[in-house]
């Protein structure tokens, strides 16, 4: 019997983890990873550090290059344009085909486009901040821009703004919401982040959107007009209004798996097409009637590892562990554990009297549902366990000091009395 041909489409963290974990379990399988973006797996989360000159390009790659040869993982550079489930093969843009016995779709996400008047006339100066080609574009734009406008107050927007400020580009940050990233930050934390950004010289415009964009004679962006009517001159316009599952290409294929915003997968991460799995940002897991879509690094990595186990014979069902997420707003680190949705749970907030440090315990009046913190480090493993065990709120609050994770000598005093938590 010839070796199984496993084709992994996408070399992001989901695809790369899947390939490496599969090789660790299956010595014989022929593993191929296809990507149109890069020859080697790189860390999308590190794009900002490359843009800030804190990492060389090679530093973006989490594994030494020879790992792929040593693990006998074939890398193919090219864009897949068709999936034929009957013949079990993929077609690439250059016309070549690839047959598979099992296919893993891990095509990730792509930036949402902004449609505002004038943008169709702009030929340069507009960029998002998601791919390696965005990084190239940002590098050359930063070098030639004095002023920039960034729209979109999510995490990627904040990261791009940090890079621009680092390079001394005067930046106007346009955020539709009343503070940055309300999906994760409460109003108080939002105010801390806003203060912090302003201290770094960011020109913040909350509750504004972009009304139109103007190019100059050469087609380079020259000004952005906000919903308030204000016109901001700039040479660079960063569009960070979110990402969406990269599934548009699938709709044009001969065989189309079930798609509902993202590729729908069951609790073994199988798509509706036989022998085709999906993992990472492009996949949403059906859990009962709900679809769970978590477009974050940790989930993509877990998906990749899970599919590798499925491909090597496991029949386990996918269950998401306690949710964890993390981010950074310039110097302010943020962590979340469990359910931190202000709409679903009550919360108690503690803030440091002078520093931009906040911690929030989400609860139902009696037990702990989630924990989020800004400006300090926490042992999320320990707190995750508390959440999992539904510990009493008072019990958890009293033990918070045990869960501090800041460097030695750097642990601030957390108040653990109930009165200190509003």
């Amino acid at each position: 019997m010839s070796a199984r041909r496993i084709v992994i489409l996408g070399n992001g963290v989901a695809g790369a983890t899947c390939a490496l974990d599969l090789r660790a379990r299956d010595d014989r399988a022929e593993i191929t990873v296809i990507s149109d973006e890069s020859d080697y797996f790189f860390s999308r989360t590190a794009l900002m550090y490359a843009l800030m000159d804190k990492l060389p390009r090679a530093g973006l790659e989490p594994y030494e290059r020879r790992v792929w040869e040593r693990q006998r993982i074939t890398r193919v550079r090219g864009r897949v344009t068709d999936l034929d489930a009957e013949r079990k093969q993929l077609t690439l843009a250059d016309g070549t085909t690839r047959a598979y016995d099992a296919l893993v779709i891990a095509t990730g996400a792509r930036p949402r486009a902004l449609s505002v008047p004038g943008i169709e006339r702009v030929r340069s100066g507009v960029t998002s901040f998601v791919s390696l080609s965005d990084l190239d574009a940002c590098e050359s734009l930063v070098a030639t821009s004095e002023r920039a406008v960034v729209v979109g107050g999510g995490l990627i927007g904040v990261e791009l703004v940090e890079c621009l400020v680092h390079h001394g580009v005067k930046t106007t940050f346009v955020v539709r919401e009343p503070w940055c990233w309300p999906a994760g930050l409460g109003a108080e934390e939002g105010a801390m982040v806003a203060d912090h950004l302003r201290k770094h010289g960011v020109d913040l415009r909350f509750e504004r959107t972009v009304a139109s964009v103007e190019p100059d004679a050469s087609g380079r962006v020259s000004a952005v007009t906000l919903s308030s009517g204000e016109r901001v001159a700039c040479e660079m316009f960063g569009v960070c209004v979110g990402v969406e599952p990269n599934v548009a290409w699938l709709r044009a294929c001969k065989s189309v798996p079930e798609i509902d915003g993202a590729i729908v997968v069951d609790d073994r991460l199988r798509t509706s097409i036989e022998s085709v799995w999906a993992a990472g940002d492009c996949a949403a897991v059906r859990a009962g009637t709900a679809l769970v879509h978590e477009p974050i690094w940790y989930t993509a990595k877990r998906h990749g590892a899970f599919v590798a186990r499925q491909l090597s014979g496991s029949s386990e069902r996918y269950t998401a562990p306690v949710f964890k997420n993390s981010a950074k707003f310039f110097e302010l680190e943020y962590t979340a554990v469990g359910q931190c949705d202000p709409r679903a749970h009550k919360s108690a907030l503690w803030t440091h009297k002078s520093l931009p440090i906040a911690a929030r315990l989400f609860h139902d009046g009696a037990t702990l549902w989630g924990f989020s913190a800004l400006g300090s480090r926490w042992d999320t493993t320990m707190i995750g366990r508390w959440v999992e065990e539904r510990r009493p709120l008072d019990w958890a609050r009293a033990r918070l000091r045990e869960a501090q994770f800041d460097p030695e000598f750097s642990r601030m005093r957390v108040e653990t009395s109930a009165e200190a938590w509003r």
Partner: protein
Amino acid sequence: MKRKGAAGWLAHDVTHRGVTAWALALAILGFYVVLYWGDNAQGINPFDRVAWALHIGRHGQSGAKWTLYGALYTAAVTLGGIAFLRRYGHNRYQVVRTIVVIVVQATLAFSVPLMMKMAGHPEHYFSYLWPLKMYYFEPGFIRSNPAPLVLWSFIGSLVIAPVLAVIYGKRWYCSWVCGCGGLANTAGDSFRHLSDKSEKAWRFERVSIYATLIITVVTTALVLASAFVQGAHPQLDLWSEKFRTNYGLIVSSLLSGIIGVAAYPIGGTRVWCRYFCPMAAVLGLFQRAGRFRIRVKEDQCISCGMCSEHCEMGIDVRAYAQANESFTRASCVGCGMCSEVCPRGVLTLENAHTKAPQEQLVQLRLKK
């Protein structure tokens, strides 16, 4: 990407092996060559003259260059340390460690020996121990120094250093006390990312560092043996002397001084510390056996690579972090910078009492 403007170009070029980096490396190399071997027939070094002009040491006194060198070194550690504190002042581990290293350099490694010399005593560097200072076990040293000093050298080298390394890791010495580490982590901090992170470099390190240690031990043993038999075996004396001079030339001068510092802009700040320092080899072994470790927070690493990039010892910290493995590497000097730069707070340095829960999990490993 490079930073903007001429200053931005320079900042990038000098820290990324550009022309200015090579020029700087050559300048440092030149400085050391003149310092070590630039004496004229009368034994006067150009830097002696510089020292006299600055009223350092008595006019006409040879060896004033060493006082000048000590002063320059201390100034570099202090000024570099202040710049470092301005950058990382929010991290108290870095603050405490840097202040200690500056104070130790300014006192134990500079002004105390200087004052001893001025008072007519043989100078003594309390902050250096065997095997970094080779001669502490030599009969010549033992005979010519007061008993408390000799006792300190023995107890410090053979008891205190290893015991502290078992409890706190080698960081107590390499990141808190030692002048070489002190310079690396202060004036040299902007070059820390240049260390080689490849597996190849790691393989080389494991050979080179223990090879130097063996040479150090053999040299010490020969010198001791030759003193012990007191001329009964002229052949032994000959060998002992040969080893001793060559060690002084190759290890102490060439590797630790010249290559160690001149390589900053090319190979990073810890070339000597990582590949050759016999003290590091000894402390590293105790560190491996001891309690120090870098703890990795489970499932929080985003594989960004900032930790590996900033590790001056060339440890691929990311490889451990993304695999959820807490670790103790012999070469880790416990500078804490991987933890400092990690944008997700994944890493922490600790003297472990208990195992973290994730260490009890069986990890799936890739075949080598």
